[in-house]
């Protein structure tokens, strides 16, 4: 099995693991970490496809690789917004619970 196929299969499992964490972990921060793992799974899969596109002396296709750099930066920005939202939620309600609508009492 080639290295890119190995990592592509590994990426499929990473998406599954992240999805599991996203569903079962009750704490929003843990859901965020799980979602990031799911995201990296998608990135690795995309990177394996880039490696498959190697041709004409280039070790990998630079187009998907450049999009990956964009994706990693945007994922960080989205994570930062989510963390800020989460900290604000706790500041406002003293709880990180997503179980019911803690703001409904106001």
């Amino acid at each position, binding site marked *: 099995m080639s290295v890119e196929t190995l990592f592509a299969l590994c990426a499929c499992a990473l998406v599954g693991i992240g999805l599991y964490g996203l*569903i079962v972990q009750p704490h929003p921060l843990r859901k965020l970490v799980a979602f990031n793992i799911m995201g990296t799974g998608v990135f690795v899969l995309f*990177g394996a496809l880039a490696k498959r596109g190697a*041709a004409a002396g280039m070790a990998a296709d630079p187009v998907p690789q450049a999009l990956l750099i964009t994706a990693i930066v945007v994922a960080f920005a989205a994570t930062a917004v989510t963390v800020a939202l989460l900290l604000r939620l*706790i500041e406002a309600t003293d709880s990180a*619970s997503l179980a019911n609508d803690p703001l409904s009492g106001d």
Partner: protein
Amino acid sequence: MTALVALVVALLLLWLALWTVVARDAFVAVAGFVVYGLLLSLVWVRLAGIDVALTEVAIGGGLTGALLLSAVGRLRSTEVAAWSERSGAGTRAFAVLLSVGVTLVLVLCVLALPDPAPTLVPQVVQNLPATGVGNPITGVLLAFRSLDTLLEAIVLVIALIGVWSLAPDRFWGGRPGPRYSSDPDGNLAYLARVLPPIGIVIGLYLFWAGADYPGGKFQSATILAAMWMLVQMAGLADAPRIDNRWVRVGIVVGPLVFVAVGLLGLWTAGAFLGYPEAFAKPLILTIEVALLPTLVLVLALLMNGPPSRGGAK
């Protein structure tokens, strides 16, 4: 031998991901995620993506890890309550089934990939000389797919506006985060005096070398932002007020110059973001130089969070 190393890395990656997802303690999970990010950069090296590996280490592992770690510290009190809400056996069984199902579908897709794989390498090789840059990734980011990079810069600014918008009214215009202080003769303060000059040189080198070698503005901006965070955390400098005019100019200068160059292309090359061939390299450099302060400011201020003290003057 290299195949064996790849297999070990893949298994370690899966084990760490599982560990991070099921660990009971949030701090352990986030620490696992940071290590996971570092290991992931090895995967990128193995997949011939040095530029991606640099970005992953700096942003995926480094900045995201630091952001999550600081969040864990402030969320300690909510962890126990959340644990009591954990999913029942039924939900967990359903989650396992769903996850395994999604993984299997993806595996089938991977095994059914066409051979030979579609590739854009020939087009890149053919058109790269016209851009004047030697690093194909930089060529893609700033010439072939520059619209993506423009939108990305705008997304970053919007994300920062989103984070700032979460500030309570009384703190609007103030400074983000706590005012850090540390022993002025301690290790942290020493590190914060010694490291930044080296970090700034490395950051600017990565920025300049990015035209022809792995590196570029994102990796460079992350290192520069990290140096700034270090100086802040050692208490040697404070985070800027978010109503500071220069901070705001620095944040929008990148996207504005990018759009201006794009509009110029409409007139000189007949397409938005088109470059006349003789001026491709100088125009790309102009965009990169303008984007650098935007990226450094936005990345650092995203780490800082919404303003939390010293509101309107």
